[in-house]
C-alpha cells in the first residue's frame, strides 16, 4: 500500500511536468505574445519591449523555461506583473478557502447522494424513484451560478438566514461555517445530483449480479444483502466517479466563488484575467493542475480502503 502510494506520487511528477510545460508554452503562443496580450493591439513597440523586459520575455525561450521550472521546484510562483506582489503567499492565503468549499460540498454530496441513490434504486420506478431521478436530472442540468443565485435569493434575501458574501473570520469556526453554508449548498446539491445518479445505476447493476441473487435465495436478511453485499460492491464504481465529480467540482467552485464573493483560487484566477496578469494566471493554472493530480491520486489510493481485494500493482 505505502509502496504503491510512493510509486503513484513519483508517477504524478511527470504528469505535473507535462501540464506545467503545456501551460508555459500555451502562454507564449498567445497572438503577439504575452506582452501584447497585456497591452493590446494599439501598444507602441517601445511599451511592448519594456514590458517584455520586465516580464523576462526578452531572454531566450530555453532560459525562460528553465527558470520557470526551477522556480516552480523551489515553490516560487513569481511575482504579479500588476502589483509586484509575490504570488505564492497569496495562493497560500486563498487556497484553504477553495479546499474548504470543495471538501464540504463533496461531503454533502456523498451524505445526501449515496442514500438517495440506494433508495431510488431499491424503489425502482416507484414515485420516489421518479421524483429522485427528476430532481437529480435537474441538478446536473442547472448552471451552477444560476443555482447559487437562486439559493441566495431564497436564503439570504427572502428568509434572511445567511450572509451573501465573503468567507467570514477564518479564526472563528462558527463564522466560517456560517459563511460556508450557502456556497456549500450550491455545489453540494450539484454533487448530490451526480452521486445519486451514479449510485442508483451502480446499485441497479449490482442488484442483478449472481451473488446478490444467491444471497437472497439463501434467505439472508435483506439488510445484509443490501449493505453487506450490494452497496459494498457498488462502491468501487461510485468512488471512481466521485473522483471525476470532485474535479468537476473544482471547476465549478470558480463560479461559486464569484457569485458569493468568496476569496479563493477561482476568484484569484478571474481577477488575473481581467487585469491581464498572465504571470499570476500561469501560476494559478499550475496550482489547479497540482490539485487535479492530487485528487486523482487520492481516488486511486481510496480503492484499497474500500475494497481490500484490490491489488496495487
Amino acid at each position, binding site marked *: 500500500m505505502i509502496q504503491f502510494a510512493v510509486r503513484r506520487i513519483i508517477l504524478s511528477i511527470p*504528469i505535473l511536468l*507535462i*501540464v506545467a510545460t*503545456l*501551460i508555459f508554452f*500555451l*502562454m507564449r*503562443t*498567445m*497572438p503577439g505574445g504575452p506582452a501584447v*496580450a497585456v497591452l493590446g493591439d494599439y501598444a507602441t513597440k517601445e511599451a511592448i519591449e519594456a514590458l517584455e523586459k520586465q516580464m523576462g520575455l526578452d531572454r531566450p525561450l530555453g532560459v525562460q523555461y528553465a527558470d520557470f521550472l526551477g522556480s516552480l521546484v523551489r515553490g516560487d510562483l513569481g511575482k504579479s506583473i500588476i502589483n509586484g506582489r509575490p504570488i505564492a503567499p497569496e495562493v497560500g492565503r486563498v487556497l484553504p478557502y477553495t479546499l474548504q468549499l470543495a471538501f464540504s460540498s463533496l461531503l454533502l454530496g456523498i451524505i445526501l447522494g449515496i442514500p438517495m441513490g440506494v433508495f431510488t434504486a431499491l424503489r425502482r*420506478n416507484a414515485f420516489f424513484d421518479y421524483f429522485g*431521478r427528476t430532481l437529480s*436530472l*435537474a441538478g*446536473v*442540468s*442547472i*448552471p*451552477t*451560478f*444560476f443555482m447559487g*443565485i*437562486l439559493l*441566495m*435569493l431564497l436564503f439570504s*434575501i427572502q428568509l434572511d438566514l445567511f450572509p451573501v458574501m465573503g468567507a467570514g473570520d477564518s479564526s472563528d469556526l462558527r463564522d466560517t461555517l456560517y459563511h460556508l453554508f450557502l456556497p456549500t449548498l450550491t455545489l453540494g446539491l450539484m454533487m448530490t445530483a451526480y452521486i445519486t445518479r451514479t449510485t442508483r*445505476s451502480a446499485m*441497479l*447493476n449490482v442488484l*442483478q449480479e449472481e451473488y446478490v441473487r444467491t444471497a437472497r435465495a439463501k434467505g439472508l436478511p435483506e439488510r445484509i444483502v443490501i449493505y453487506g453485499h450490494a452497496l459494498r460492491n457498488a462502491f468501487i464504481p461510485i468512488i471512481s466517479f466521485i473522483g471525476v465529480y470532485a*474535479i*468537476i467540482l*473544482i*471547476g*465549478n467552485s*470558480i*463560479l461559486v466563488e*464569484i*457569485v458569493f464573493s468568496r476569496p479563493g483560487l477561482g476568484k484569484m*484566477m*478571474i481577477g488575473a*484575467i*481581467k487585469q491581464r496578469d498572465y504571470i499570476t*494566471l500561469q501560476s494559478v*493554472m499550475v496550482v*489547479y*493542475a497540482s490539485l*487535479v*493530480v492530487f485528487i*486523482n491520486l487520492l481516488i486511486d489510493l481510496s480503492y484499497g480502503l474500500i475494497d481490500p481485494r484490490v491489488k496495487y500493482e
Partner: protein
Amino acid sequence: MSNTRILEEGKGKLWRTFKKNKTALVGTAIIIIVIAVAILAPWISPHDPLEQNMVHRLKPPDRTYPLGTDEYGRDVLSRVLWGTRVSLSVGILSILFGLVVGTAMGAVAGYKGAIVGSIIMRMVDVLLSFPVLISGILVVAILGPGMDKLILTMGIVFAPRFARLAYGPTLVVKEREYVDSARIIGVSNLRILTHYLFPNIFGGILVAGTLWVGTAILTEASLSFLGLGVSPPTPTWGNMIKSGIDRLTTAPWLSIFPGLSILTTVLAINMIGDGLRDITDPKLRI
C-alpha cells in the same frame, strides 16, 4: 462499449425502443421546439434584440414586453429568443469542431498504435483530467473574447473527449479481417481511415456528441457569466444572466428567464441521454 452496441442493434430497432422511452421522447420534443425557436428567432421576436429604448428601461413584464426590458430598454423576450440561436449554435458548432479534430486524433492514435498512439493518448489523458471550465478559461484567456474564439476554445476543450471515445473502437475495428485485407491489397491509410474506420465508429461518437452539446451550452453560459464569452451587445443566455445579476433584487426577470432557458435546454438534452442509456444498457432496461 455501449456505443458499438447501439450500432449492432440496428437503426430500426433502436428507434422502436426509443419511441417507448417517455423521458427520451419528452426531451426530444423540447429540443425540437428549442431548435425551432433558434431558427425562427428573427420572425417570432416581437422586437429587435439590440434596439435600445431608454424611456422603457427596466420595465417589469407587461403586454408589450412579455418578459420585461433590460437596463438599456431592450426587450428581454427577444433577447432570450435570439440568445437561443447564439447559445445553441455555439454549443453545436464547438462540439462539431471538437468532434472532427478529436475523432481524427483518436482514430490516428488507435490506427497507428505504438509510439505515436501512446503519446497522443497520454496527452489526451492529461487534458481530460482537467475540468472543462478550467481548460475553457485558460484557452479563452489566451485567444481573447468573441464568438468565433469561443467556439474554437470549446472545440479545443472537447476534442480530447472525442479522441478518447474514438480510440477504443478504432483499436477493435483495426483488427477486423476486412481492414486487414484492405491493407494487404494496398488501400491507402487515409482511405482505410475514411472508408472503413469512420463509418464504424461514427454512430457512437455522434450520440455522445449530441449529449455533450448540453455540457457545451453550460460551459458557454459559465464563460459568458464570468465575462469571458461573447462580447456585448450580442445576447447569449450566459451574458444576459451576468448583466442581470447586478439587479437581482430589483429586476429579477433579467436573469431568471435566461437561466430557465439554459435549464430547460440542458435538461432536455440530458433526458434524451438518459433515455439512450436506458436503451443501450439492457441490464437497466425498464
